[in-house]
């Protein structure tokens, strides 16, 4: 007992708990307002509500069985067992496999916030047309059959991808690639919004909300990335710096590309670019040096811009708020970039990437991407088919025209008269 008290570090514990709250802030209000501002007036509450309810639903799922499936005692590298159902045995004693200097329960709640934000990211793809009941069922099934297993493979003790040496510091693969790929599949399955590509304009209804939400994402992301050091230490400071650096580079890059291509740098472009940089640096932030973080950010800004502005338009799928273009593409780039730029001089627990003399890690990162893309795509396809068969995923045409706020929630966001 005395030994455990000595091992526990109050500074580490304080930082991880603070980071947990910061990651919650990313979902509500950060992501909620980032997405909420981008939709039309008639749908803003539906987006805020979906973000909010995901916090409620996944918090419960995680405590009951999600944490146990993801981080619990391993079954053949595939999934955790249910020994930790209802947090049985997850208490104050640190779990040295995950974080030796903080209570196991602190690690658990930190991870809960990751489990919350991941399905919330997907909201952006089916925004303005998914039935609330379908959204709820999809979210619970997706968290259980995509996030929890994938999290176990990459982060759980005994997970098979972790065993191969896969590196994902804070969730570039588990959070962003998985949600981004699933978003692309969903956008195709659920179909375009009425009038999409036929001259209907989808002007963001409140750009200040979007900029505010994007800024809160940036702020909260320090908990996401620097918090993933799981201690108040040098590595946390390092991840903080690489995160900020890549984000700055990506936000600037996107705005400059737009300036050249469309004649004006837009606020939406700067914020979107910053988010693409945050995504791309997420898997790499604890393994790469700050100068390479600039490069990771610049490339993220370029490829995510083209994915959103050119590829989406060319292929014609309606990923309403660009979850694939930013989180999918940015997440894949960041995961591969980790295999290029990782260096042991930054983090002994990491590896040397291709540019530091070791091709092996890059190949592992490629495998990680391939596995995640296939797994997320196939599972999302199956889950969507189940949901659609149960409740019909899409709202009726008339409901879509009237708006989800009124038809799904019996509310209006803005009054026009006193």
């Amino acid at each position, binding site marked *: 007992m005395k030994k455990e008290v000595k091992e526990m570090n109050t500074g580490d514990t304080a930082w991880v708990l603070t980071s947990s709250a910061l990651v919650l802030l990313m979902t509500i209000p950060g992501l909620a307002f980032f997405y909420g501002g981008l939709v039309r007036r008639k749908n803003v509450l539906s987006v805020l509500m979906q973000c909010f309810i995901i916090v409620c639903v996944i918090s419960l799922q995680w405590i009951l069985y999600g944490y146990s499936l993801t981080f619990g005692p391993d079954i053949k590298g595939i999934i955790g067992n249910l020994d930790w159902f209802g947090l049985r045995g997850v208490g104050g004693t640190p779990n040295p496999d995950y974080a030796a200097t903080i209570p196991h329960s602190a690690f658990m709640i930190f991870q809960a916030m990751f489990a919350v934000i991941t399905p919330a990211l997907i909201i952006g793809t089916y925004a303005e047309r998914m039935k609330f009941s379908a959204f709820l069922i999809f979210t619970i099934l997706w968290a259980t059959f995509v996030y929890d297993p994938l999290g176990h493979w990459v982060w759980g003790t005994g997970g098979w991808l972790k065993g191969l040496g896969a590196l994902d510091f804070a969730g570039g693969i588990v959070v962003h690639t998985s949600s981004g790929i699933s978003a692309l599949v969903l956008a195709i399955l659920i179909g375009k919004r009425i009038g999409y590509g036929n001259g209907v304009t*989808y002007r963001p209804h409140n750009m200040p909300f979007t900029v505010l939400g994007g800024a809160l994402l940036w702020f909260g992301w320090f908990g996401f990335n620097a918090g993933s050091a799981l201690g108040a230490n040098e590595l946390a400071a390092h991840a903080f710096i690489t995160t900020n650096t890549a984000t700055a580079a990506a936000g600037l890059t996107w705005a400059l590309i737009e300036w050249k291509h469309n004649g004006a740098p837009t606020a939406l472009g700067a914020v979107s670019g910053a988010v693409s940089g945050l995504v791309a640096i997420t898997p790499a932030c604890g393994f790469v040096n700050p100068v390479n973080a600039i490069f990771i950010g610049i490339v993220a800004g370029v490829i995510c811009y083209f994915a959103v502005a050119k590829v989406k338009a060319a292929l014609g799928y309606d990923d309403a708020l660009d979850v694939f273009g930013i989180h999918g593409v940015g997440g894949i780039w960041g995961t591969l970039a980790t295999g290029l730029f990782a260096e042991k001089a930054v983090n002994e627990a990491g590896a040397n990437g291709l540019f530091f003399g070791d091709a092996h890690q890059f190949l592992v990162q490629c495998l990680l991407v391939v596995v995640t893309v296939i797994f997320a795509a196939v599972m999302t396809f199956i889950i969507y088919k189940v949901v659609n068969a149960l409740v019909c995923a899409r709202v009726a045409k008339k409901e879509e025209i009237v708006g989800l706020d009124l038809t799904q929630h019996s509310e209006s966001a803005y009054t026009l008269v006193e």
Partner: protein
Amino acid sequence: MKYIVAVIQPHKLDEVMKSLEEAEVNLVTVSNVLGRGRQKGVTEVYRGAKEAGSLLKKIKLEIAVNEDFVEPTIQAIIKCARTGDMGDGKIFILDLPEVIRIRTGEKGGTAIG
């Protein structure tokens, strides 16, 4: 009696209101409106997607006047709302058969001022 509807540039509102006051025209209803003219609006760009034909923000003034005040009102608006560029707006004059003051029930010319 005439009902004068003027659509003007938003940044000209303060000057036009002052000019109307100097012409002793006090009754004005002002609204924010959207519209377009021969320029066909403006183009906005969101994440690389160009949204052509976005409507321009304008201010609409609605003014009810007796015949004597029609010309001074028009001149007051033109004097301050004109910049000489495209988009300065329009003035529409409509016949106004009746005006009723809600408080007193007065009708016609006496109810206007």
